[in-house]
Every structure is written in C-alpha cells, then in structure tokens.
C-alpha cells in the first residue's frame, strides 16, 4: 500500500493556497490586488495573510502612498520552498508510483 506524505496544512486551504499561488509568480503584490484576484472578503483575506506571515511563508510590508495605507505582500524563500514541497506532495498524491 502506498503511503502518502501529509499535505502541508498551512497550504492545504483554499484561500491560503490561492494567495501563495499568486505570490509565487510575482515579486510583490498589494493587498487589494490579492483581494480582487481571489474574490475573498478583506476580513477573511487579512486573517489568512496573517497565518501565512506567522508561518514565515510570506512577508508583509506596510507603507503609505498618497496618504493612504498600502499593504504589500511577497513570498519568502522559506515560503517558496514549502510551496514547491506542497506541489511535489500533491503530484505524489495524485499519481502515486505503483509498487514494483
């Protein structure tokens, strides 16, 4: 029987996975961009971003632009590594090697 590695619980959640998938391909994104692309509410997105930040997967920078607060997010090296691991685990899960 093939044993599966447990999928990373931080990433195995719709919204957190969506945020990480967006950030993996870009250098930096504004909070509003992430909200538009994921279709999530600001409150829910804010909670999930905090979880990702606390896990060390992303960095959050707060700035001001034209006197308005601006929240910028970018993926960390650790986050990139965990995302790659998650995708590899997912591949194993979806197409497990048949025992020889």
């Amino acid at each position, binding site marked *: 029987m093939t044993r599966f590695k447990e999928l990373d619980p931080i990433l*195995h*959640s*719709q919204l957190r996975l*969506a945020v990480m998938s967006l950030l993996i391909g870009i250098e930096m994104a504004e909070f509003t961009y992430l909200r538009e692309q994921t279709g999530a*509410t600001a409150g829910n997105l804010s909670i999930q971003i905090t979880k990702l930040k606390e896990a060390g997967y992303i960095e959050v920078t707060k700035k001001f632009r034209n006197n308005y607060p601006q929240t910028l997010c970018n993926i960390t090296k650790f986050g990139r590594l965990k995302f790659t691991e998650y995708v590899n685990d*997912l591949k194993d899960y979806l197409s497990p090697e048949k025992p020889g």
Partner: protein
Amino acid sequence: MENEEKVMTGEESLKIISEMINKTKFDIRQGSFYLLFWGWLIFACSLSEFLLLKFTDVIHHYYVWLLVIPGVFVSMLYGFITGRKAKVRTYTGMLYMWIWLGFFISATVLFIVHSKSMYTVAPYILLMAGLPTFISGFLIRFKPLIAGGICFWVITLVIYFVGPVSYSLGTSVAMLFGYLIPGYMLKNRVDHDAV
C-alpha cells in the same frame, strides 16, 4: 473563496494553483504603448529626415531627431505613472523594464561616443534595438515581436552595405516592421482578450 477551511481534494488544489498562476501573467498593455509611441516617433523622425534630404536643400536635416528628447520625458512620465498605479510587480515586467532601460543607456552612450559623426549611428542603433525587441518577444511569447527583432538585424545589414544614403529610409522601414506592426498586433490582442 470564503470557506477557507473546507477540505480540498488534490484536483481542487491543482485547479486553484493553475488558475491563480494564470492570473499573474505580465500585463502586456505597457509593452504595446512603448512600441507604438517609439515606433511612431522614430518613424516620423526618420521619414522626415529622408524627405528633407531627398527633396530639400536643408542643411540641418538631423534636427528632426531633437524630437527624441521630449519623447524620453513622455516615456519616463508614463512609466512613472503606471508604476505608481500598479498593484502588482511581476518578474517578467521587471525584466522587461530592465532590458529596455539597458538599451536606452547603451543608446545614450553610443550617441555621446558618436556625437561628432552622428550620421553613422543608425546601423548601430538598429543593431542594438534588435536585441531587446527579440528578447521581449520571447518574454511575452509573441512571435510578431520576435520577427520584429530579426527585422532590425536584417535591415542593419542591408543599410550597412547600401551605405549612409539608405540610413533614414531604412530606419523608417525598421520601425514599421520592428515596432509598429507588432505593436498594433499586440494592442489588438490585448483589446480582443479584454472583450
């Protein structure tokens, strides 16, 4: 995407990953603006110079190239405004910007080095312009722009062997095939995708 704790299947996870990654593609609209702006500006300058040389006795025909100076400011202003408005910074977008900035710096250095023999600059500028055009075509996966880059190199060879008499007309043709045609095709693709 509200119920974030809902248990996902592997297929659902993959679907989210691929959907989100597709959303972060580089916005190619900026690319079409620069191609069309510089395409028309250089096309107008080179064609005007050609017509002045061919049909008039104007000595300072190269003065038409002074239009490039406000062009640089317009480009910088556009880049500054769009950069400030941008909610996202893609790796492709950054690479695209640095490649063209590198070309701009190289061209400026070339103009300074050749300031006493400006009429000889055209083949070198076209040769250099071919590289960012060619690479940009690959970056945004747009074949007409790759072909545009190749056109610059072919026209460089042609005007080099024909001689200085062909420089201004050659530059106009290069702008047509290198920037304007790919620029309009890119714009049409963006408009079509936006419908």
